[in-house]
């Protein structure tokens, strides 16, 4: 799997730490995964296990300090040229050019993710101003190379000036045509997400819209530049149940139409079954199991995944949130070198409290991090200290 060239995003050995007064929180601990073009990867796990930090790392949005990228790389492949960028080590200009253009993000609570003091139109226009200024100028009949700003300077320099002055230009009424081109772009982005009255929404402030409408706006904003990857961090958790399904359908529909890959973070395993191609399960900052979504759901290998699935009520509706498993999530502050799940695991043996399990490749494009799938001699412990390997539990639901 790792040597295939058909990938879009590759997170390799990512560790993110937070320095807090109480100690170093190892929020993300040696995480690796891959997203292929057009596919949906679901990332699930209990609250606080590091899903959002992982998502933010992909855009290099973890606040530093207190955050710190302690190890690893976030590789993004340009699907046209094949060029690979490491978001964590690339120069800031390049990271910014990628954000909002090739990777976009929708947040859990659209009410908090929209600026309360700017109109919707203005907030969407920012994306175009940042990434599509030249195109819009051309549309407005202005040569972006000559531009309305001065003359005689180097083209690239002018592009920078242009970007910075985009809004001042339109506001000054310097060019009605630019304004019209921006408005057109914003309107079509909004109506693409099924917003019924885009012109009215454009001139509204966020507080004048409903939660579902705000999330549509967020989706429109995220997809404005047709990104290759959309990160959706629990996009429906803050919404009414009735609206949730419609927003998910919208995301799904947009993905079908545009071929966007999605990293979909959720608590809801029934949604995983519905929308995801692949599934990665996170526990205490690590990925404990990953593979094709339906396969993992059908035959979970890691004791944690098994526990999660067993906790879903089998009868009745297939809706299920991650329900409680006995015990509680371990401290992420200076965790001991052992399997993080050992305190809650029924299989736990001697070796589990002295070794951190590695992700082991399994047949069927699957990976599991559990000592039950490792050889005693390869980690150098007595076989009698190892958890016994029992054939995977079949969970059918």
């Amino acid at each position: 799997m790792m040597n295939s060239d058909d990938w879009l995003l590759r997170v390799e050995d990512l560790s993110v730490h937070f320095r807090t007064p109480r100690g170093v929180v190892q929020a993300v601990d040696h995480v690796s995964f891959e997203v292929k073009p057009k596919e949906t990867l679901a990332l699930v796990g209990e609250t606080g296990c590091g899903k959002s930090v992982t998502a933010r790392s992909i855009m290099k949005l973890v606040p530093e300090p207190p955050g710190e990228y302690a190890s690893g790389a976030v590789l993004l492949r340009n699907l046209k040229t094949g060029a690979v960028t490491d978001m964590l080590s690339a120069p800031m200009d390049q990271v910014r050019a990628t954000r909002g253009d090739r990777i976009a993000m929708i947040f859990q609570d659209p009410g908090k993710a929209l600026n309360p003091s700017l109109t919707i139109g203005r907030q969407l226009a920012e994306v175009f101003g940042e990434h599509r200024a030249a195109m819009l100028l051309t549309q407005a009949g202005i040569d972006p190379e000559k531009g309305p700003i001065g003359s005689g300077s180097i083209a690239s320099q002018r592009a920078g000036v242009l970007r910075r002055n985009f809004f001042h230009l339109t506001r000054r009424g310097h060019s009605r045509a630019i304004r019209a081109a921006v408005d057109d772009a914003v309107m079509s982005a909004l109506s693409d997400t099924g917003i019924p009255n885009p012109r009215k929404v454009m001139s509204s402030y966020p507080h004048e819209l409903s939660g579902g409408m705000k999330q549509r706006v967020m989706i429109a904003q995220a997809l404005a530049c047709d990104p290759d990857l959309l990160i959706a961090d629990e996009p429906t958790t803050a919404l009414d149940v009735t609206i949730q399904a419609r927003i998910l359908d919208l995301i799904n529909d947009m993905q079908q139409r545009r071929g966007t890959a999605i990293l979909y973070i959720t608590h809801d395993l029934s949604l995983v079954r519905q929308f995801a191609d692949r599934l990665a399960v996170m526990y205490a900052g690590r990925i404990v199991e990953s593979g094709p979504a339906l396969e993992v759901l059908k035959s979970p290998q890691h004791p944690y995944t098994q526990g999660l699935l067993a906790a879903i009520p089998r009868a009745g509706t297939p809706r299920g949130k991650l329900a409680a498993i006995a015990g509680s999530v371990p401290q992420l502050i200076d965790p001991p070198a052992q399997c993080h799940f050992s305190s809650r695991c029924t299989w736990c043996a001697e070796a589990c409290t002295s070794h951190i399990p590695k992700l082991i490749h399994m047949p069927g494009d699957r990976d599991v991090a559990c000592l039950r799938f490792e050889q005693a001699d390869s980690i150098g412990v007595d076989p009698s200290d190892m958890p016994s390997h029992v054939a995977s539990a079949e969970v059918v639901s």
Partner: protein
Amino acid sequence: MQVKQYLIRRLALLPLIMLGVSVIVFTLTRFTGSPVGIYATPNMTPDEVAALEERYGLDEPIPVQYAYWLGGLLRGDLGWSGVSVAPVTDVIGLKMAATLELALFAALVAIIGGIALGTIAGVRRNKAPDHAARFFSILGASTPTFWFGLLLLIPFYLWLDWFPLGRSTPEIFDSIGHPTGLYTVDAAISLNPTAIWDSIRHIILPAVVLGFGSMAIIVRMMRSSMVETMSEEYVDAARAKGLPEKLVIKRHARRNALVPTATVIGLSFGFLLQGAVAVELIFRWPGLGQWVTGAILSGDQATIMAYVLVTSLIFMLVNLAVDIAYAYLDRRVVLGS
């Protein structure tokens, strides 16, 4: 449109409030004693003083006296200013212009300095600029205005003689026209470089001294609201759009941080009018503060009452302006509700 209606309603209420203020001011002032001292001379007999009181209606009951005074007020007669040896209405315009000019420049210092420092401190929280700004704001909040004024006067006036006392050099002041009454503005209009320089040289030191305390308050407010808005999700969302950090801070974080700061700015203007009294005395600034100090010391009631009326009017107008600025900054505010 909504702003206009609100403005009209508030302006219509203004005379009523001013009427209330005038009752309170008049009553309280009269309780301090008869204002006859201003008109009497030390060698008058008690009979002559009584005749004076009768002539000016000072022997009448207080409500009747108030009615006389209010009648005068409505006709544009605020009485005789003993300290200025002229009718109050003749001098009050000049005094008000001088104080307003000083307060405006001080407000400019406080607002621009406060917002800039507060923004930097909030963005670079717990770094050197933040510590510096916080130290500075504690200093500003705990330094008495008069003391700080003297502290600046000693090096800059006494030793270096860079900045003069007073509001202007009289010959230069008289050499230009005064359409607005604000010396700096009039000097700028006259395009006379000597006058421009003269006006700036005079106002810098008192404006800095007067604005310092308010700036400290604005820095604190701005810092804490910047810290808050910088951790809002829409700031991260703005970064996720690919905006440069400078724009993220300016257009997203700072703009929203200005909302709570606007209230503090409005309140601090009252603080400025109050502080102006001390600053005007120290810098010999011929404004309302210096005027009313003289009036208080000599029991000049007409001047005191005029002062209170004028400052309350200014204060209310400033608050109105702040309310409107607030509604402009925070779109969720519904004016008048």
